[in-house]
């Protein structure tokens, strides 16, 4: 019983980190209407950036929480203009093919540059545990999840309490009408893309607290993020929280009964079941 509770708690903690990533992708998908299949590769790059900055330059992991997103914010502007702007307004199948080929290019480039050895940020408390009644939790994971919750809260404050956030939500609910009320859509797209990239950068740092990084991790995270969005209903930012928690919990619980490698299989099975019975997501009416 306590094993079940423990894995559920771990799953919720993981879900907290996935939520940051899913919100980032949901903003990009919602505002730009861009089906971004290379998002996991950007996350992989964020994790490598974190790893190298931490290991080579010895920058503290909490300072990295500001440095990596800042790098991603700066990179996102040329990235949007050079790579993604051209795809806006084109059919979705073009987006998928385009970003999937970007994903394979980035993944292979990482393989060439950094080899396939899994790397891990060795934070001093990485192997320590926190005891909470009957359950034991990894200290690094707990810290990362608390930070993830803080990030999520700030994102929600930005989206729901500021004018810029209101513009983003308006664009998500109807992206054609924003140009009618006198807003330049391309500036909103850039804003949303940068915000999404910043969240991906933050998520990369948070994941690096607990997980190793190798060039091929991206595919799995791309899948988790998309499944989280579809479970919650695309365009509903609150739905991402639910979807991400479902993924985290189902992964850790499946780890109790099945081989570790099957955690991805479980995610896909849940995804297909939801697609069959509620194709528009759990929250959409």
């Amino acid at each position, binding site marked *: 019983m306590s094993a079940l509770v423990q894995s559920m708690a771990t799953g919720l903690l993981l879900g907290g980190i996935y939520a940051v990533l899913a919100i980032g992708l949901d903003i990009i998908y919602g505002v730009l209407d861009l089906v971004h299949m290379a998002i996991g590769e950007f996350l992989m790059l964020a994790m490598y950036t974190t790893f190298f900055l931490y290991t080579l330059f010895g920058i503290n992991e909490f300072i990295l929480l500001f440095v990596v997103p800042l790098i991603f914010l700066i990179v996102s502007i040329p990235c949007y203009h050079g790579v993604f702007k051209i795809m806006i307004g084109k059919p979705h199948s073009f987006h998928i093919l385009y970003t999937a*080929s*970007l994903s394979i290019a980035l993944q*292979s480039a990482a393989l*060439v540059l950094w080899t396939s050895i899994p790397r891990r940020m060795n934070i001093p408390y990485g192997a320590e545990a926190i005891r909470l009644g009957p359950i034991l939790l990894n200290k690094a994971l707990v810290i990362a999840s608390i930070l993830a919750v803080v990030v999520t809260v700030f994102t929600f404050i930005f989206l729901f309490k500021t004018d810029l956030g209101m513009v983003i939500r308006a664009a998500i609910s109807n992206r054609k009408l924003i140009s009618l009320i006198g807003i330049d859509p391309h500036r909103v797209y850039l804003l949303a893309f940068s915000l999404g990239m910043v969240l991906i950068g933050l998520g990369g740092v948070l994941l690096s607290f607990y997980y190793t990084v190798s060039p091929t991790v991206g595919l799995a995270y791309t899948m988790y993020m998309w499944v989280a969005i579809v479970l919650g209903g695309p365009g509903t930012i609150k739905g991402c929280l639910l979807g991400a928690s479902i993924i985290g919990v189902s992964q850790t619980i499946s780890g109790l009964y099945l081989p570790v*490698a099957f955690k991805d299989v479980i995610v896909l099975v849940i995804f297909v079941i939801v697609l069959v019975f509620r194709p528009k997501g759990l929250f959409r009416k």
Partner: protein
Amino acid sequence: MTKTKWAITSRSKLITIILLVLLSSVFPLFSSKYIIHILVICWLLAISSIGWNICYGYTGLLSFGHTVFFGISAYITLWLLVPFQITPWIGIFIGASIACVLGLLITFVTIRTRGIYFALATFALPQILIIIFNTFWQVTGGAYGVIIPFAEENAYLMYFYDPVFYYYIALAFLISVLVLQLRLSESKLGYCLRAIGSDEDAANSLGIDPFRTRLFGMGISSFVTGLSGGIFVNFLKFIDPVQAFGWPLNIQMILGTVVGGVGTIFGPVIGVLVVVPLTEIMKLLIEQHFRGLNLVINGVILMLFIVLMPRGVYPWLKKLFEKYLGG
């Protein structure tokens, strides 16, 4: 011959096929074994690319799961051959049929999904099969893969030393599949598939049953892709999960169709003939220094094609043909 006739009639397409057959069947007489080897891979990839084209080019379903059919068929053919000595001449068809059943199952489950949802649902399937094949390594041979043991040259077991034999086998299959695709695109089913591809709801309101049509389309598509998997494993005499289901194969299959021309008859063949030699040259030039860089270039080529030439080289080639042959 007028312009429109060249563009439309299926007879001229059949003539093109026959000319290409003559050209390609005398080709091995003048070339080295290495080039024949590459051409066999070209024909096999072209077959699976045609399978993908029937799914995406006609029905508009963007599948990332077609390596599943390729890999399953390859493994089935191998398993029938190695312990049971069942001839690949039958095994290939059994493997392809099982791939077809799998394709029908996948369609059955994902029937309500389309667009990005279908792509997402199929996106992870190959990954999952790799995981399953690696986990149950006692049964499947795991990450090390399975080989066809060395044997005497034997036509019954499709075991040859010279790639020329495989060249003709692959060519024969490719031609049959091309003719099949030609027949399909002119048939009622082909029009139904395209109607569903352009607008599923509108097609439905005209009395085309999307469920049945998608089942048929996916069934043919997965069978064709399965065929190439079965021949492929007999040609290379080796298969492992990543080679059977992995991203590199997937991207090459997609690349062939997208570069050649989505939804066209000859697009996949032309695309593969562009892509595979390019990859081989790239391998020769840079592979020693940077392993895996050719995949980066593959990805970038695909991106460029989607931006610059989303309909592939085939329409462009056709225009050239019409200019010089059509008068």
